[in-house]
Every structure is written in C-alpha cells, then in structure tokens.
C-alpha cells in the first residue's frame, strides 16, 4: 500500500487500483536486482516453478511470449552456480533442473526424432503453468491491495449489539395441574401400615403341640410330621417355622433330641427317655 495518499485526496481510488501491479513488480525488482541477490534469496522461492516464474519475469516480456529455451538456460545456470557456491538445493530444484535439461535437448533435436509427448508440447505446457501461476500471483497482490477491514476501512469501534430478549412462555394445562396436586398429596400423605390378618401358628401352640406329640412315641419323627395335616399352605409355613423353634426349645430344655444327617436333610426329632 502506498503511503502517498493525501488525507483528503480524490484520486485514492485510482491509486489503489494500480497498487496490485506495483506490488508484484516491486517484489520482482527486489528479488531480481542482481545475480548475487538471486543466490542469497534461495529460501525466498516457493519451489522451482516460482523461481522459473521470476526468471521469466526478468525477460521483461509478456509471459505468453517468453523464450522457454533461454528460460531453461537461465535456470540451469542458476542451479550450476548455486552448486558452485555449495548452497544446498532442495531436491525438487534438482529434479526440475534434470527435467529442463531433458527438455532443452529435446527442443534442440530435429522434430522427427522426438517421442511423444513432443518437446514443443512440454514447453507449451510449462509456459501455460507459468502463466497460471503468474496470474494467481498478480490476483493475490491485487486482492491484498484492496480496502481491507482493519487496515483501510474500520468497523464501528464499540457496537452496542442488537439485543434479542428471549422470553419464555410456559405451557401447562388443567389436568397437569390437578395431577400434580394429586401427586403431592399421595407422596406426602402420612403412611399407614396395615398388617393383614394371616393364619399363623404361634410359638406357644407349636410348643404344646410338639411336646404332646413327642409323648406318644420314642421313635425318631420328621419335623414335618408334627404339622397339622390339612393346613392350607400359608398356615403350614407358619406352623413349620413355629414347630422348628419349638423343637429347638425342647432340645434346649433336654426334653428332646434333634438330628439332621446332612445339610438341608430332613430334621428328625425324638423324646429323650428319662
């Protein structure tokens, strides 16, 4: 960007329009000032095509009318001299050099001895590539020379911003309301525990029953044989539990013996003879 713009100048537009080309040219001039500079700026090139493009620009003619042959010579000379200076060249520069050397020899050969693709085709394609890269380089310079936000034009320093207030509307219907109340009442109602009346045999009655039945015989009897024979299942379970405890109690009092031959085997019971 040129610094010559006057504060209130009217010709700013025109000046800027030509900046793109100027920048491209300036850079080419900087780069190509002397041969010496060429070598020292080896790192400045983005690969062999970039170097070729700069060499082509040195011919100071339209990219469409450059001489490929002299371009090849310049490139090869440049590579030779760089090697003489013992500068390390990236492999792709050497590959390009080899390819250009081949191209040069092909271009010098009589046409009928050439293979496909012809040297002319290769040369033309190289030229087309250089034109395309040149076009993009120029386009980039013109793009960068435009009025850029933050450099040439500025946005508002501190915008308030547009406010979007989010308002929430709540949705709820009558049933949901009533249901919620029911839920609360149900959740917090005092808990009343009702114990259902169940057919049970108490420990006392089991104790009476087991000791009475033990008096009848001296033989071992299975615990189940002490249970009321036709009891419904729930009473039977209760009776089993009570009778078991009764049997333990009688054993503790020394009035009965308990025996079980194996784990979970039948529990047998008999009176202790006195």
């Amino acid at each position, binding site marked *: 960007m040129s610094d010559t713009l006057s*504060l209130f100048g009217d010709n700013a537009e025109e000046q800027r329009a030509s900046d793109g080309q100027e920048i491209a040219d300036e850079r080419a001039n900087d780069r190509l000032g002397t041969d010496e500079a060429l070598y020292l700026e080896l790192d400045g090139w983005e690969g062999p095509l970039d170097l070729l493009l700069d060499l082509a620009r040195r011919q100071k003619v339209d990219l469409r009318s450059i001489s490929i042959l002299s371009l090849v010579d310049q490139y090869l000379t440049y590579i030779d001299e760089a090697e003489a200076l013992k500068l390390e060249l990236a492999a792709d520069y050497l590959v390009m050099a080899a390819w250009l050397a081949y191209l040069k020899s092909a271009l010098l050969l009589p046409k009928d001895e050439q293979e496909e693709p012809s040297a002319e085709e290769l040369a033309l394609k190289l030229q087309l590539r250089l034109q395309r890269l040149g076009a993009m380089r120029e386009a980039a310079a013109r793009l960068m020379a435009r009025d850029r936000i933050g450099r040439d034009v500025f946005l508002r320093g501190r915008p*308030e911003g547009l406010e979007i207030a989010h308002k929430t509307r*709540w949705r709820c219907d009558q049933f949901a309301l009533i249901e919620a109340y029911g839920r609360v009442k149900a*959740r*917090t109602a005092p808990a009343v525990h009702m114990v259902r009346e169940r057919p049970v045999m108490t420990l006392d009655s089991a104790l009476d029953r087991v000791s009475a039945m033990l008096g009848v015989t001296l033989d071992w009897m299975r615990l189940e044989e002490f249970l009321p024979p036709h009891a419904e299942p729930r009473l039977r379970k209760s009776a089993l539990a009570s009778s078991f405890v009764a049997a333990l109690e009688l054993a503790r009092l020394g009035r009965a013996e308990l025996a079980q031959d194996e784990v979970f085997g039948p529990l047998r019971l008999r009176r202790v003879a006195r």
Partner: protein
Amino acid sequence: MSTDLERALEAALFAADEPMSAESLAGFLRDAPLGEVEEALRALAEHYERRGIHLVERAGRWHFETAPDLAHFLRREREQVRKLSRAATEVLAIVAYHEPVSRAEVESIRGVQTSSGTLDVLMEEGWVRIAGRREAPGRPTIYATTPAFLDHFGLSSRRDLPGLAELRAAGLLDPVEEAYEDLMGEGSDPDREDADEV
C-alpha cells in the same frame, strides 16, 4: 455537503472505541485547528439530529449513539413456549389449593425444598402473585393465584378445582407405588405373592 474535516471526524468517531474530546480528535487529524474541529463537530451533530444515529457530547467528549426513540426497535423479543416443569406445576397446584400460602408451607406440603426461581417463574407468567404477609413470626410473604391463572386453566373460580374426594375417586391420590402396580396389572405376579409369605 459535508466538508473533508467533517468526513474525517465522522470516521474517527465511528471507529473510536470510546468517546473522544475535540482536542484528541484534532490531534488525530494531523493537528487540525481546534476551533475548526469544534465547529465541524457541531455541524455534524446538527446533520445527525434527525437521523437514526445521533452525535452527542457528554462531559466534553463526543460519541455516536442510536437515537433514543428507536431503542425499542433494537430489541427484539423472541418468544419460546416450554412445558412447565414438574416442580413448578406442583408448586402452582399447591398455591391454587391452599392459597394464600407461604413458601415454607408450600415446601412442607410438597415435602421437598422449593427453589425460589420456581415461584418467580410462576409470577413472571402472571399466574401467581404476592398476596401480602402472614401475621406470624417472621411475617413470611404469602402467595395466591391470579385471575390470569383461572383464565389460563379454564376455571371460573378456585372452587372449580376438584376436591380431594374427587381426586381420590379419579385415582389421583393413590400412592405412587400402588398406581404403578395398577398400571402393571394387579395380581399378575404370583411369584411376588409367594415371596411375601415365608
């Protein structure tokens, strides 16, 4: 037609991130004469007087701002409908059935702590209002429903709310577990019956 100086001031004030005095503006503009800067500022302010942006001077420093009468344009409300949360619905129901109630009473009925945001939401929506203070220790704020509440829920008065007997008949007072079992089909689980009986 604006002068070059006016244009420059306009741009400088626009891009500035804080109000600027005439002095600092003059310094910015290649040391333009202060008198001219001040004159240009006044001309600019006049130009913007009837526009959507105003150039104003406050405490000797100038800045652009949007015209005060347009403030409402710069704010857009975006409405969003959402389902009332379970907690808020319960609180609303309790207020409706027990009003006027204090927050502590709502909590004791719900059996759960109630965030203050919940009552705010209900008040913002216009369904619940503050109905004064209870003449009791601590003078707690008490809440009641509003006419808008009755409207929204299609009730002509609070007496339209179903009573406890009706709730019970509708199965709405059944303890949660039982209601669950009802849903799952009663007595269809014989294993469970047996399991109870050892």
